[in-house]
């Protein structure tokens, strides 16, 4: 049972990472530059993956789930802020920001992902048996998911650096303070 829960834990991480990969498709495949709030939402998703990865390498502990929940709450704050910014369409202008997927924009999907993560954490917390195992050895699948997380984080770092440098991102690249 516990072994299956570790696999489910890594599958949850993989789902978030695939969503972050989808964001790269919009960025590089469709040529849509990520908005500043979108980048912040990506960071919150990486925070959730970090919490899940702690479970993978140190065993299930409630502190690790609190990392996931805190990151999800931070992320849902970012995404709801963006939803509210675009909730009232201006006549003659396109509704929302960016391309809609299945009728909803990416920041709306992100809000749902963060909410689902809180629900998922609650369910796993109810099912897992806590263990403090700092020497836990993840299996091959779990390790590969973790290395994929490092790759996605590094790819975001490089993409953000070449888009905006070290500072905040403005509409067409780095913010030029005049």
């Amino acid at each position, binding site marked *: 049972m516990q072994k299956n829960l570790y696999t489910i834990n890594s599958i949850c991480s993989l789902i978030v990472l695939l969503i972050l990969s989808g964001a790269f498709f919009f960025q590089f495949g469709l040529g849509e530059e990520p908005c500043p709030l979108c980048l912040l939402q990506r960071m919150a998703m990486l925070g959730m993956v970090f919490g899940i990865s702690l479970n993978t390498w140190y065993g299930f502990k409630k502190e690790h789930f609190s990392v996931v929940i805190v990151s999800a709450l931070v992320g849902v704050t970012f995404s709801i802020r963006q939803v509210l910014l675009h909730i009232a369409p201006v006549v003659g202008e396109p509704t929302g920001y960016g391309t809609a997927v299945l009728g909803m924009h990416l920041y709306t999907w992100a809000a749902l992902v963060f909410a689902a993560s809180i629900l998922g954490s609650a369910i796993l917390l109810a099912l897992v048996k806590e263990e403090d195992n700092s020497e836990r050895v993840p299996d091959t699948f779990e390790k590969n998911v973790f290395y994929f*997380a490092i790759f996605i*984080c590094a790819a975001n770092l490089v993409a953000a650096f070449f888009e905006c440098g070290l500072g*905040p991102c403005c509409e067409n690249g780095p913010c030029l303070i005049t």
Partner: protein
Amino acid sequence: MAIIFLTYLAAFFFILKRNKKMAYISFALSTILSVAMFLYHTNSTLNLNF
């Protein structure tokens, strides 16, 4: 923004190096930085609200 991603990357590397304390510190730092950046976005004159 790239700096915040760098702190998240550091957090992942500290997990790999089995240094849980530093991983938590990196995570806390990156979360605080991202919230600070969000607050900066809400009232910046650079028009970052999109």
